[in-house]
């Protein structure tokens, strides 16, 4: 009998210890929906890379202390296969079956909007790095009873990014040209994102005194020579390859061979990729990253971030910097949870995010959400010296204070 009592006591003690351990390591379920296959895979994989790194760092640092409990992040990563229907199915599973508290993703506007229609009613926070969300994030949508109250845009508004980029490009190229550039051609893929983004960039260039022509090409174009020949006939001072880094890397070498313009700007092409591909031009070439470059960053904390990001096995690609549209927000969200003291009060977390700031890796200026749940930070622009692949000069121009004339800011 004494032995039985002793045994029961040991079992009870063991159970108590197990319960204590479980209490110390509660799980905070967070969803990630990103393209790990399909045509957006190179952007989608960066979201997963950022999430893995942030979760590992938060958990290794002891987790998130909320009230008297400590939570470790458990990621539930779903591949949306670059398909909006798969995205919706994944969001439903994460929200309804798993019960995640927040979701990071996805990489495109229409996918993010579809997700928000699921996360909103379930009061699940959503962090999406699409500047085009600016078209729907308005006073009514983000109000307490609005359908985007729990959605946050983790990339600046497009007029801000366009303004910051245009200023950076012109400040770097103007001293390199015989006369100040006056005529720009913006060359962009004719899809929904390309149309949205280029409309703001054209206005930003016009605000800087440029006469701008817009030439759109069908998505998935590989042979750009006929279109580039047409642009050559327009005698531009600068050709701006806008929006799609992969298309830009296909078109730009063709433009160099055809001698299309005396200077170029490549959006979304990292100096690291320019160097890796041994690209060389006999004219000045600028390039920008979304938002800061892994190949040539002026900030030591950005360099440290990318060392760790690539150290986890992420591939070096033209869009690797997109991961920084997602990384900082894990820490900011964790900070908000700790401040609120509860993980089941999404309204309080939203309120805390809106009144707090966070000094992250992506910007030397602390991140702040505006009343429409959007952040602001600058875009880095670099210029490579002619006839070199690895000599870069970079500039970070802060976004303008207001949208340029003709830009409604949406």
């Amino acid at each position, binding site marked *: 009998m004494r032995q039985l009592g002793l045994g029961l006591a040991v079992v009870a003690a063991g159970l108590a210890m197990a319960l204590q351990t479980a209490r110390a390591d509660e799980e905070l379920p967070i969803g990630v929906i990103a393209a790990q296959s399909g045509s957006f895979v*190179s952007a989608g994989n960066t979201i997963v890379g950022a999430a893995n790194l942030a979760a590992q760092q938060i958990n290794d640092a002891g987790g998130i202390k909320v009230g008297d409990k400590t939570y470790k992040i458990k990621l539930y990563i779903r591949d949306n296969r670059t398909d909006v229907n798969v995205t919706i199915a994944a969001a439903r599973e994460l929200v309804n079956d798993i019960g995640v508290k927040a979701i990071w993703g996805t990489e495109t506007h229409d996918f993010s909007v579809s997700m928000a229609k699921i996360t909103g009613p379930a009061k699940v926070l959503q962090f999406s790095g699409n500047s085009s969300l600016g078209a729907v994030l308005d006073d009514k949508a983000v109000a307490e009873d609005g359908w985007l109250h729990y959605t946050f845009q983790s990339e600046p508004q497009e007029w801000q990014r366009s303004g910051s980029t245009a200023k950076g490009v012109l400040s770097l190229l103007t001293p390199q040209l015989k006369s100040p550039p006056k005529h720009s051609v913006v060359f962009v893929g004719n899809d929904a994102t390309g149309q949205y983004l*280029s409309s703001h960039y054209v206005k930003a260039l016009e605000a800087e005194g440029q006469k701008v022509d817009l030439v759109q090409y*069908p998505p998935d174009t590989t042979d750009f020579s*006929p279109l580039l020949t047409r642009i050559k006939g327009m005698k531009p001072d600068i050709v701006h390859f806008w929006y799609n880094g*992969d298309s830009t890397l296909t078109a730009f070498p063709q433009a160099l061979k*055809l001698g299309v313009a005396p200077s170029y700007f490549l959006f979304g092409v990292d100096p690291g990729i320019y160097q890796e591909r041994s690209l060389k031009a006999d004219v000045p070439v600028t390039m920008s990253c979304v938002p800061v470059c892994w190949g040539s960053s002026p900030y030591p904390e950005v360099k440290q971030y990318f060392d760790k990001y690539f150290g986890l096995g992420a591939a070096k690609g*033209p869009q690797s910097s997109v991961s920084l549209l997602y990384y900082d927000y894990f820490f900011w969200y964790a900070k908000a949870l700790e401040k609120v003291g509860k993980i089941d009060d999404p309204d309080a977390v939203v309120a805390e995010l809106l009144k707090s700031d966070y000094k992250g890796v992506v910007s030397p200026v602390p991140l702040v959400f505006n009343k429409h749940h959007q952040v602001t930070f600058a875009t880095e622009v670099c210029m490579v010296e002619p006839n070199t692949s690895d000599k870069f000069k970079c500039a970070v121009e802060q976004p303008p204070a207001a949208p340029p004339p003709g830009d409604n800011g949406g």
Partner: protein
Amino acid sequence: MFRPSPSLQVRHPDLIMDIFVQQLVNSLSVASVTILIGIGITLIFGLAGIVNFAHGEFLMVGGMATWFMVGTGMNFFVALVLAGLLVGALGFAAERCLFRFTLNRPMNGFIMSIGLSVILQHAVIRVFNEFQKSITDPVGLVWTIGGVDIIAMRAIVVAITAVIVAITYFGISRSRYGMALRASVSDRDTAELMGIPVRRYVTGVFIYGSLLAGIGGALMISLFPITPFTGSVIIIRGFAVSLIGGLGNVGGAVVGGLVLGLVDGLSAGYGYPEWTDAYSLVVMILILVLRPQGLLGGTLGPKAS
């Protein structure tokens, strides 16, 4: 929707003729890779009776293999030959392990080939990664003749395509093998009774078409970067070329490729640039409505038995 600026036309009259000639040169080079893909498809689709939607991925594998070999320091033209042989071997394996079981049910083969294309895309992502791959221009020369820029590597691609077209044309139209092949397309049962090993010929056509895809992939990466998804884009044009020209007709594939190349080049130069793809597909639809057998005529494609 944001509209292009109205000042899109060429504003410098002195450039008009140079630009026009440049667009004709561009059209020829646009056509050459398309012709190579179209020939492979037209042979496999029109003569072997197999609808291989993974043909574009065969091309992509050829390009990726070339990128890998050139990356190890191999000469591009050696890599081009090896890529052709590698993809030919891939075609042999696919025909023996998959498509030979669907010869009497072409729709099964079609669906199977869609599955194969997805598997090949993700196998390449797994082996390498999802990012674009490119090689340095193997020749790196641009000739300027009277204001027109001719990129040397594009001229080489046109020349290689012309040689392959000539070999394939004479092989199909003049050789004993080609005659036997065409006989087996017309009447498979009679051809078999006459002692023609039809199944072996089908395998041969499939291997040859795949080899051309491998060479096409190698030539393509010498001009443009490619991704694991390049094949699924290029396959549409390949089928368009083979249908416009006439299934199984090598000359037809050349004419089809030139028609699409010309439409692409001139519409991009003088039409609404964002509609470039639409122009060529409208031309394809018109041709197929007016001449269902294709411009030069061909076979009726695969038949279920």
